[in-house]
């Protein structure tokens, strides 16, 4: 409920109906006014609350600062922090209702092990003994390559770093990744390709300062509601920014836009090449900036030259006038902020298209300046930390796996032989980890805080892999999920509010989330579980001392600070004490204010790739280009997507998000308000397609791809003709029964937005 009295609103607001809450308009350059949103359990008033424990919300990547309400040792609600730079007191519906209500419901409180085909409760010693026995046996028989770790975008930095050290220096396996592969791998990849290292250049304040806002494949109104409230406040205030939205659906964001471009799914690269061509052809390029701070302009210009408005219109099925209008807004606005998300990241040529957004900004020199920049968005709340701390397919501290000096630094820090740290090829991406498991060469798979049996593509295949007799699966979660039901050992984990740690949002703002209550039963923090495994495995450094030298979250944070020292994501200026006030960004408010990019060969996170094939650039070739602080204008031609509609499967199916649910609903389905708002999956189709199919709103239809099918009711509207949309959150009639095992060549992010499907009335 919106706390009405303090800020002049007389009536409480139903935040299920009004997901963005009341407007507090502000003009360009004005501070975004505070508005404190609060939700307490029925019958609990503010005066009943014993303690407010500072934290930040973990139900999207915005990372809104909040306080957790505690009464009698239980979490009873949440309120936004007015002083936090990210949200100025606001919370979205997921934060208000979904962040705290699941804590007491249907939790895992004891470890489970599979006996005679059934999961049965047991103690920690029995469960961990089993895990350690399997782990030891496989290390002896086959070696580190038998082990894979598949983690999350929802743990804390301290947990990822600990897991990263265990995997990379304890076991020495390259097979570590997070479900961040599914949500933000392309953000990281596009930033690395263009700027040399991960890290979001822009900040939230740029929304307050921009003259134009571009949303590329980003339904911000549903995925980051508080961020969108900030945009709406600009739109309703004086000097409103012009808004351009690229999305095949007419989302609420698209409805608020001055220009809405709805390209056919799979054609983003053609559209971006068209925008770039128009900006170049109209002379909106800052040639001085380009010549001093970038590499590759001539190749980019030549590559985009064939993408005339007419040619782009034919490929993307957008109007040439709309394309030119969007290019004009980009080319003539003084300050431009761009955001990019799944419509680009989970589509064909994901990294290539996302790099073109960076290119547009570089061509005009609109980066690292107030009101101008790029947010290659994250999806999950702590995805940035998975990437920073090396729990995914990267080395910790944005280090370059192909740079022996970086590997040596880590080896020194951890006091291990550099050969222990796998660096003969890029760390294995999630889709390949699952492939190795399918082939039987990964036999030990530890899944933490994620539910791949709902979130990965082609679920029939994923279930088959998880059921393989020769694959030992450990699943670590707060609840029983579709995934834990297929595991051999299930470890009960503490949730947000039940443990302490830090995490970093989509604009690099780090928050400390402190423990408010004890975990239920025997549940333990993910950090404690990883530490227990390390202790039982007896991982040692070169001097025979324990490899992991910390025992709690703050100790892990300090160890991470040392690891980050001197790297782009340097945390050494932060501390738990400093973070007790409110969120603080690493790297300053904006990156690249001096137009110097982290592309020096000895500093960069990656030597880059060919955008078409994903071929790695060799160190020799990279050094020969002498980037030395200049950004790369990487170009790519458009290629047709791997799956297109056919006579048998005439529609393009895309998956996405509901404003009321997060990921696979483990938390949000346990919040009655959210569950009631969106209890079951659906398929959304255009009015014209519905008429052709002879179906009406609410009719049950079967949606099928060559991989599988679901039966769901129809919703009419929002999609362009020929395109249908399914929310991916649900574990029943799951959208990912339809999706295919296919990924972007550079970021390795699966192509969820492109499944050829057919529809018939049931």
């Amino acid at each position: 409920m919106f706390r009405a009295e303090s800020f002049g609103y007389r009536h409480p607001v139903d935040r299920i109906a009004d997901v963005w809450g009341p407007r507090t308009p502000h003009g360009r350059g004005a501070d975004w006014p505070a508005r404190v949103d609060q939700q307490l359990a029925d019958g609990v008033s503010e005066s009943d609350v014993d303690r407010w424990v500072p934290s930040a919300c973990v139900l999207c990547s915005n990372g809104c600062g909040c306080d957790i309400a505690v009464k009698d040792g239980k979490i009873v609600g949440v309120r936004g922090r007015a002083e936090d730079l990210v949200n100025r007191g606001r919370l979205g519906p997921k934060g208000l209702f979904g962040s705290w209500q699941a804590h007491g419901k249907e939790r895992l409180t004891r470890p489970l092990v599979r006996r005679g085909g059934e999961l049965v409760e047991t103690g920690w010693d029995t469960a961990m003994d089993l895990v350690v026995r399997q782990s030891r046996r496989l290390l002896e028989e086959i070696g580190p390559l038998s082990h894979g770790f598949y983690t999350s975008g929802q743990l804390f930095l301290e947990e990822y770093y600990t897991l990263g050290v265990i995997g990379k220096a304890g076991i020495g396996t390259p097979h570590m990744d997070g479900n961040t592969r599914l949500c933000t791998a392309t953000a990281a990849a596009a930033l690395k390709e263009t700027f040399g290292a991960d890290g979001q250049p822009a900040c939230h304040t740029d929304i307050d300062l921009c003259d134009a806002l571009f949303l590329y494949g980003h339904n911000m109104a549903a995925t980051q509601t508080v961020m969108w409230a900030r945009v709406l406040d600009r739109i309703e205030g004086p000097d409103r920014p012009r808004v351009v939205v690229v999305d095949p659906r007419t989302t609420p964001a698209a409805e608020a836009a001055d220009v809405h471009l709805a390209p056919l799914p799979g054609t983003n690269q053609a559209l971006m090449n068209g925008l770039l061509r128009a900006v170049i052809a109209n002379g909106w390029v800052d040639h001085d900036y380009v010549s001093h701070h970038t590499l590759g302009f001539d190749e980019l210009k030549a590559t985009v030259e064939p993408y005339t408005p007419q040619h782009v219109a034919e490929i993307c099925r957008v109007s040439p006038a709309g394309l030119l209008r969007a290019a004009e807004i980009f080319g003539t606005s003084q300050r431009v902020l761009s955001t990019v998300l799944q419509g680009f990241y989970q589509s064909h040529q994901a990294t290539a298209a996302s790099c073109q957004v960076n290119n547009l900004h570089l061509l005009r020199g609109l980066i690292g300046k107030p009101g101008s920049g790029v947010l290659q968005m994250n999806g999950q709340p702590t995805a940035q930390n998975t990437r920073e701390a090396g729990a995914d397919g990267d080395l910790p501290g944005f280090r370059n796996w192909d740079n022996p000096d970086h590997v040596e630094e880590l080896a020194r820090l951890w006091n291990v032989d550099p050969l222990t740290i796998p660096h003969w090829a890029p760390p294995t991406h999630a889709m390949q980890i699952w492939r190795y498991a399918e082939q039987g060469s990964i036999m030990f798979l530890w899944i933490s805080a994620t539910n791949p049996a709902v979130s990965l593509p082609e679920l029939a295949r994923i279930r088959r892999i998880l059921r393989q007799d020769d694959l030992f699966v450990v699943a670590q979660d707060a609840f029983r999920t579709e995934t834990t039901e297929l595991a051999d050992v299930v470890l009960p984990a503490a949730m947000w509010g039940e443990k302490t740690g830090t995490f970093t949002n989509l604009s690099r703002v780090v928050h400390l989330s402190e423990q408010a209550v004890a975990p239920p039963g025997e549940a333990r923090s993910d950090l404690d579980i990883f530490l227990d495994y390390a202790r039982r495995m007896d991982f040692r450094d070169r001097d025979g001392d324990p490899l992991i030298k910390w025992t709690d979250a703050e100790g892990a944070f300090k160890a991470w600070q040392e690891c980050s020292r001197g790297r782009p994501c340097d945390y050494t200026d932060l501390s738990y004490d400093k973070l007790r006030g409110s969120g603080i960004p690493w790297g300053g408010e904006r990156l690249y204010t001096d137009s110097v990019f982290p592309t020096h060969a000895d500093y960069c996170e990656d030597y880059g790739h060919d955008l078409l094939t994903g071929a790695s650039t060799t160190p020799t070739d990279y050094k020969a280009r002498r980037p030395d602080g200049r950004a790369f204008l990487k170009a790519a031609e458009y290629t047709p997507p791997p799956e297109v509609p056919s006579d048998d499967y005439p529609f393009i199916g895309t998956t996405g998000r509901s404003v009321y649910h997060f990921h696979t609903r483990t938390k949000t389905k346990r919040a009655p308000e959210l569950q009631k708002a969106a209890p079951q999956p659906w398929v959304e189709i255009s009015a014209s397609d519905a008429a052709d199919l002879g179906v009406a709103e609410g009719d049950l239809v079967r949606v099928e791809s060559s991989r599988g099918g679901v039966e769901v009711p129809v919703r009419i509207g929002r999609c362009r003709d020929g395109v249908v949309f399914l929310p991916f959150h649900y574990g029943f009639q799951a959208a990912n029964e339809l999706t295919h095992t296919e990924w972007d060549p550079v970021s390795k992010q699966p192509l969820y937005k492109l499944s050829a499907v057919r529809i018939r009335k049931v």
Partner: protein
Amino acid sequence: MHLATYLGLLHTSLRSLAAAFREVAKGHGDEPDVQHTCTVLASRIDAQTEKLGPIVGRYGEDREDEPERLHTAEFTETRSGGVGLLRDLQDLYALASFTDITWTVVGQAAQGLRDKELMDVVSSCEQDTARQLAWLQTRIKQSAPQALIAARG
């Protein structure tokens, strides 16, 4: 002048290489990245062959069967499993290297002949061949440890 012989050799090697990429794509459908990338690269090799058309029109071509021999020896059928994938990619690497050096030889002739058009064709096709080799090397390096150490069967 023996340029016609080399243009024939190049022409045949491009055809063999495109066919080999398509066979590997077809045989390794369970590796979606291999399937997709091989298909994309095969169609780009077709484009190289087209660029060669006007050059052949000018200088003629004498066909030799050497790349065909290389191709048939290696690609009667694709292999399976981790090591099988590795071997198939390695064969593609050998074929692509053959094409690469053939382009180099033709490029040298183009310079001797001061044939600007042929030089431009060689330059763009050499870049494309470098891309094939770079991708093959990346994918082979990624697969090798798992295939040789941990794979079963």
